[in-house]
Structures are given as C-alpha cells and as structure tokens.
C-alpha cells in the first residue's frame, strides 16, 4: 500500500516536471572545408622536349612541291630545333635511319657538344637519310615509357612527331600511343607530311587524372567548439550550451539564441528563434585564407543563409 502511494507521488511529480519544462531544442554545427589548390612544381626547369623524326622509306619515296617528304620533314625539324632556347632540354629520336633489320625502333640521337642542343640536333636531323623501317606508334610508346621513368617529366613534357603516317611496320595503334603519352604527362604535336588521314580517335584522348604535383594532402576536419547563447535570459539563467563542430547536437531550451563558432575569425549566427523540438543546423563552408567564409542555417525547414558580409 505504501509502495503504491510512493509510485503515485513520483508519477505526479514527473507529470508536473514535463508540464513546467519546455521540450528541448537542439543545435548542431557542421563544417565543410575547401581544400586550397596549390601547385608544387619547379617552374624554373623547362619541360623536356622530344622530337621524333620519321625517316622511313615512304618519306623518301613520296614527293610534293618538288621536295621529298623527307626533305620537308628535315626542314621542319631543323627549323623547330633551331628556334629552341639555348638551354632547352631537348632530345631527338630518329625513326628509319638505323642499318640492319627491316623494322627498327627509333634511335635517340645525342647532340654534338660544340653547340647548343637545338642547333646541334638540327644539323644532325638535316644530315640523316632513310635506311630502314620502323613503327611511329611503337616509338611514341617508347618515349612515353621513358618519360614515365623520369622525375623531371612529372611537371610536363612535350613530344613533336613529324611523319607521313605511312609506315610499313605496325606496332600498336597511334591512339594507344597518344594515350600513353597523355598518361605520362606529355603533350603530343603531330606534324603530318602529305595527305594520309589522321585517326579520329586522337581527338578523344583526355581525362581528369590528378596531376602528380598537385597539393594532395587530405584536409583535416575542422576542430572547433561552438557556444549557444540565450538572447533573453530568464532571471538567474546564465547557462550557454557548448558543443563541438562536427559532433553531436547539443540540447538547449527553446527561445531566441545566437550560435558562436570559435573559428578564426569567429562565426556568429543569429539570433534565431528556436521552438520546442526544433533542430537548428548551422553548416559552414570553410574557405581558404582571403575568401569570405560562407554559412547556412537551417531551422525547421526555414533556411537562412549568410556570409561574412551579411549576418543573417
């Protein structure tokens, strides 16, 4: 009997407490960080340039404008090489000038040491003649392999191929070779001598692989606290709720509140009227230094947006 009386008394007390205390509201703060885009590359070093000159038999056999294709290609290569600055990092690869078996890979040619590399290689390019066959695509793939192994090519490389696209040695496709160069970070410029068609698939080469020297450090989540401050405190009520950005929602009593997030500089949101059971979500877009920080506030479906120039 005494137990029943105690239970009744407790239930009555609980009912009074529920009637007198307002149902709590909650506040949650989230932050999204914008990673700064930074390049970590050495601008001083010029990107390597590889010139591939096709001297295979079809270049020797075909003529236009009173010139063999070979003469035209040598003229173009010579002029290009001579136009390079004296400190250019340039290599010449010659296809079809080796003796021996019918299909030979392109041969890298060394620049004479008595002149700047471009000038010396231009003289070499103009002096060579056709002696064998070789695959343009295979030679481009070989250059791509070479570049992949070179640290200096990480920040870009350039490949210039001068050819009639008419080789008797087939080894891989031109588009596969162009894709390999793309993956190795090399631009490909193709100078076509004569009227051979250019494969349409070359226009499809591309992608958005992250460059190797892009600042790739993951951005740590925002570490900051926030406070929820009552605008109209009742007599004797000086409490303010504390929470962590990205953490759990904190319960607060309904009413007019401001949210202060301890970022640098601090973000102050509000005043916002919180009803019973309402959830105030503050979402902040953290941006790199120098940009205005933006945030959004969501309260029970009513959106309030702002930035550092306009306090909601």
């Amino acid at each position, binding site marked *: 009997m005494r137990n029943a009386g105690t239970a009744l008394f407790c239930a009555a007390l609980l009912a009074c407490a529920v009637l007198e205390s307002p149902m709590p509201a909650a506040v949650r703060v989230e932050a999204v960080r914008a990673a700064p885009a930074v390049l970590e590359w050495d*601008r001083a070093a010029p990107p390597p340039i590889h010139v591939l000159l096709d001297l295979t038999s079809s270049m020797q056999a075909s003529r236009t404008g*009173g*010139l063999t294709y070979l003469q035209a290609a040598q003229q173009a290569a010579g002029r290009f090489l001579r136009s390079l600055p004296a400190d250019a990092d340039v290599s010449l690869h010659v296809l079809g000038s080796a003796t021996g078996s019918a299909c030979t890979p392109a041969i890298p040619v060394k620049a004479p040491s008595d002149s700047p590399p471009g000038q010396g290689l231009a003289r070499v390019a103009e002096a060579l003649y056709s002696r064998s066959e070789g695959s343009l695509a295979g030679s481009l793939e070989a250059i791509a392999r070479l570049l992949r192994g070179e640290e200096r090519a990480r920040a*870009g490389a350039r490949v210039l191929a001068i050819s009639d696209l008419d080789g008797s040695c087939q080894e891989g496709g031109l588009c596969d070779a162009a894709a390999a160069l793309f993956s190795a970070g090399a631009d490909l410029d193709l*100078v*076509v001598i004569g009227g051979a068609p250019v494969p349409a698939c070359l226009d499809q080469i*591309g992608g958005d692989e*992250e460059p190797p020297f892009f600042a790739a450090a993951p951005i740590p989540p925002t570490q900051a606290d926030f406070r929820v401050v009552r605008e109209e405190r009742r007599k004797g009520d000086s409490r303010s709720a504390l929470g962590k950005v990205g953490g759990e929602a904190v319960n607060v009593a309904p009413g007019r509140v401001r949210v202060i997030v301890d970022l640098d500089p601090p973000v102050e949101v509000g005043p916002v009227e919180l009803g019973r059971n309402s959830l105030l979500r503050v979402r902040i877009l953290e941006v790199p230094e120098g940009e205005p920080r933006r945030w959004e506030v969501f309260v029970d*479906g009513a*959106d309030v947006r702002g930035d550092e120039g306009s306090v909601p």
Partner: protein
Amino acid sequence: MSSSRFGRCSEGVTREISAILGALLLSTALAATSRAESGLCAPWAGEIEPLPTVSDPDPLLAAWAQLRADQLAEVALLLELRSRVLAHRVWRHASCLDPERLGFVRALTRTAPVRWFRPEILGVDEIEVSGGGELPEPVSERSWELGEPIRVVLARTPAPESSPLLLDVTEQIAAAEKALRDARFELALEWVERGRRLLASQGPAREPPHQRVQLEVLAATAEIALGREEAARESLGRALRAQAGLSLDPAVHSPKVVRLLESVRGGDRPPP
C-alpha cells in the same frame, strides 16, 4: 533537408515535387555512375566524395563546387604556360564541377592533349649569295610555328647586320607569347622590351594602341609569374594609358592579371 523545405506545401503538390525530385536524383545518380564508370570526375585528394557540381541541390555543396572550380581554373591557367596535358587534366576536373561554364569548354579545346598539323609544302627557294662569300646561316633558321608552310632554302643571303632579327612588333609579341607558353618568363620580358623599343622608335603619335596593350599585358603576365607585382602594376598602368576601357577575358588571362588590372584601374595600392 530538402523535405523540410517543402514542409508547408499541400500533400498533392508535395507528392508531385517528390516525384520530380526523385526523377532528378535518379538522373543525377545515373550521370554520376556513368562518369565514374568512365573514370572521369572521381574526387581528388581532399575533395568531397562524391564530387558535387555547382547545380547540386545542397546549396553548401554547390557553393563548394563553385569555389573549387574557380581555384582549379586559376591553377590550370598557370599550368597552360608549361604543359597542355597537365592543364587539360585540371580543366577537365574543373568542368566536372561546373560542366556548363563556357570558359572551361573553350579551355578544354585550347589544351587538347593531341594536336595535329598538315603544313603546306611550298617547295624550294633558290636565293643567291651576295658578295660571293660563304653561305650564311639560313634565313629559315628563324622560328617555325607548327603548321607553318615549309619551304626549303638552298642558297641564302645574309640578313643585314644593322637590321634587327624581327622587324615587326607583331613578331616581338608572338615571340613573347611563345616564351610565356614555354614558361620562359625572363625571355618573354626580353621580347617585350624589344617590342617596346620598336614602338618607341615609331614615336608616340604613330604607336598602335593595341600593340602597346598586348606588350604590356604580356609583360604583366610574366612579371606576376616572377613575383614582381609592382612591375606588373606599372605595365598594366601603361596598358590602361593606351586603352582606358581595357578589359581582359578571364577565360584567356590569369585571374591574377585580371584582378590586378582592375586594382590598377581603381587606383588601389598594395599594402606596404
């Protein structure tokens, strides 16, 4: 979040909107899946996964995508001076975030990883040697732009010693642009200086303003790349004196140059 925005709508309208939203979400998801399957638009390190776009229904993610796209565009413009392929990758990624931006579409065309040229073959030039001396350096040794017609010179006459190598300011501008593309900023400034001397030799009254503007903007671009902001301000000041209403296309010029131009126009000075 989206459901709370439509909390006050009538039930029928809500159902309709839900259906539309569902269809939109499905098509977005399918597009994202297709992009993911093709290996495109995967988030890079530090980015939000899945990669949002500027039209993301979440305004905060849309704002992030906008900001990130702007950042990438700034980096890609710098990269273009050095490597088309690397710049192309960054432009492509930026266009994942903002597929509709026209400047990105243009940049992707400009930085195509593979370019091909079919130069016209003009034949052989027979040029007599003056004075009967040794063959001088061939005139054809001057720079050759890819795709330019090819002419073989068999015998040559030397260029007069007194004449400069490039006589036309247009050629100085082209040489400076090429040097910039090759990230050779000091060399670009040398070409600009030669162009300025040529312009000065013509006298202020005969100076074509557009050539002055081109030279000074090229100079400012190189100077900014070399960290010489004060010199860049002076170059842009000269450009504005030649053409007061000058504006620079952000799709073509570095955002830093564009911003600095506006700052110089407004008379702002950098903090000491």
